[in-house]
């Protein structure tokens, strides 16, 4: 067993971090955030040039054909930089096309997405559609796959996370799909894992920023990081961040509904709690608009509920675990079976 990123994955991560620290500085995030669309086209294109829109697109369709772990690696760094705009939505849409698209749809859409020429998103309902206003392609699930939402108008609904805008689809369209739960949920599970990875990256930024501040900020003649109250808040943040990371990478590797729900339920609570603690340690300065902490605090809240909040995923865990388990003995047998078989 090797629960660690491979060398290529570590390189991918480092290059993503280098790229973002160069190209996606806080000033740029704030500039995008202040616009109506949070869309920084040049940043999107540069990221596409890094291959980020093509990560999980099969090579046949011009993609890199990488796995969800690799996607998580990049998403973690995106979350760490609080990257704005429609890149996340486009990756989400690419997963939908890969999992639910017809051969024709794949040929039509995946190549331009991989090339960074087309921005896309998925409407899971008529509300809360990510970045629909700047997407060239808005998808919805149908009873037997996916299709483009055509002739619709999208109205922006300002929300807590201003780095990724939400839109409402007009009422003439219905974006709810009851059928094809299989494609729908495997697509959402990929997106949820990518989101969890972003959340881990956000937690890491908050932890790093908070620890650095605690080492330098002086009160009562000492660095505040020498106060136990502050130390313990930071230690809890570390524990939450690392636990969220374990759950997320495990989910990316396993890609089972259970593993995904474990990750999303945990990350939903943990990102919010880490953001809370980060601001608390900073004190007044952490509560100002000027400090970047609140971008992460807002992203944490938006991410908490996206693709199902903790309550939703706990219920999904319950239905997978409690309802399936007929007796402790049976469950033990199952565990034995699992531990002896390889994936």
């Amino acid at each position: 067993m090797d629960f660690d990123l491979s060398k290529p994955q570590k390189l991918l991560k480092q290059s993503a971090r280098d790229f973002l620290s160069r190209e996606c500085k806080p000033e740029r995030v704030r500039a995008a955030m202040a616009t109506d669309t949070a869309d920084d086209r040049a940043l999107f294109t540069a990221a596409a040039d890094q291959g980020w829109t093509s990560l999980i697109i099969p090579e046949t369709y011009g993609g890199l054909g990488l796995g969800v772990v690799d996607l998580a690696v990049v998403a973690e760094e995106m979350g760490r930089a609080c990257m704005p705009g429609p890149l996340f939505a486009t990756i989400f849409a690419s997963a939908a096309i890969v999992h639910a698209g017809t051969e024709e749809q794949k040929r039509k859409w995946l190549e331009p997405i991989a090339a960074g020429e087309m921005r896309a998103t998925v409407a899971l309902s008529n509300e809360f559609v990510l970045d629909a206003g700047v997407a060239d392609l808005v998808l919805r699930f149908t009873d037997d796959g996916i299709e483009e939402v055509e002739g619709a108008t999208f109205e922006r609904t300002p929300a807590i996370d201003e780095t990724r805008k939400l839109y409402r689809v007009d009422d003439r369209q219905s974006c709810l799909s009851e059928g094809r739960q299989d494609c729908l949920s495997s697509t959402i599970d990929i997106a949820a894992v990518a989101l969890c990875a972003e959340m881990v990256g956000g937690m890491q930024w908050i932890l790093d920023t908070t620890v650095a501040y605690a080492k330098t900020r002086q009160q009562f003649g000492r660095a505040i990081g020498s106060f136990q109250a502050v130390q313990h808040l930071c230690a809890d943040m570390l524990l939450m961040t690392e636990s969220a990371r374990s759950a997320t990478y495990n989910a990316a590797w396993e890609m089972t509904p259970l593993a995904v729900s474990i990750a999303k339920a945990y990350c939903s609570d943990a990102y919010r709690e880490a953001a809370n603690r980060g601001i608390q340690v900073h004190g007044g300065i952490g509560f100002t608009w000027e400090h970047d902490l609140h971008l992460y605090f807002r992203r944490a809240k938006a991410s908490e509920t996206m693709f199902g909040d903790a309550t939703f995923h706990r219920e999904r865990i319950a239905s997978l675990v409690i309802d399936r388990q007929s007796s402790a003995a049976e469950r033990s047998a199952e565990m034995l079976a699992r531990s002896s078989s390889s994936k």
Partner: protein
Amino acid sequence: MDLNLTPDEQSFRDEFRAWLQENVFEAKTVDELKRWQRTLFEGGWAGISWPKQYGGRGATLMQQAVFQEELALADAPQLIGVIGLSLVGPTIIAMGTDEQKARHLSKILSGEEIWCQGFSEPNAGSDLASLGTRALKDGDGFIVSGQKTWTSFAHIADWCLLLVRTDFEAPKHKGITCLLADMHAPGVTVRPLRMMSGDAGFNEVFFENVRIPSSQVLGKVNEGWTTAIAALMNERANLGTGVQVLFRRNLNALIARARSMNRSADPIVRQKLAQAYLELEILRMNTNRALTSLSKSGVPGPEGSTLKLYWSEMNQRTQQIAQEVLGQHAQLSDFDNGMWQYSYLRARGNTIEAGTSEIQRNIIAERVLGLPKSY
């Protein structure tokens, strides 16, 4: 024990409620808000806790709580002169010179003078006594330079209760002086401080060689720390009664919303709403017990820390519950006018402003429980 209002308290409530019904009006702009304070003043409802000889009403603590509750229940406008009324005025009454009293007290009551409180600095937050704003002796006065922050009302204030360092050799608590500073004096600039919730509730205030005559020292030179502590005690003792009704209104709206969204039959939602409800009720009870205890002892003590710790942590839990109960809608700026988004963001500041939760716990541990100092 008698949890009913006394006849006196009840008639105070009835009288003020009746007055409010006649006189309350909507006020948003600074001019309107000043007019609201003037209306209160003319009705005899400004500075109700102040002694009668200074134009107050000599109200009991319980009456003050009733007063706050009625203001909130009547949806009355914010009290623009609240720093002057509850913090500066009482301190001038206790420690001011006759000249200072004559000059300021009636103007504080009428709202002619709006005050702010210049205590916190960028490098003196929790550790207030390490403040660095310097006041150098200059003839019959001081030349003040430095920066204050988290100063509510500074952008509209005429005066500031200002803490400065006057002795640079003394231990940090011993070299502080409390000044009455004219905000219109040359060298004072104010910059609004935008909070993460998007609004500018506070300001930064910069003093550049501002001259303040000695007649404007409140209390004695180098003994300003005692003044500051007394003022802060007042602030902490007051806070609970004001915010309570706002919390109540917020929770009522949440319950109504949960009902209208058909969320209130969900057993999990019910547990959360009930928890928010019971915690708020206990805030009311804790406040009433603290008021009783203060009424008997007369001196505001560390009870304020217990209340502050309770309500700030409570409101953060409750706003999280609101988000969970209302789901993604709660994050929208155009759902209920963005009130859930705003109250969630704003609540984050609760455990930091007016003394962080960590500082409150230190105070409780050391001053209530008598544990040894931690640093």
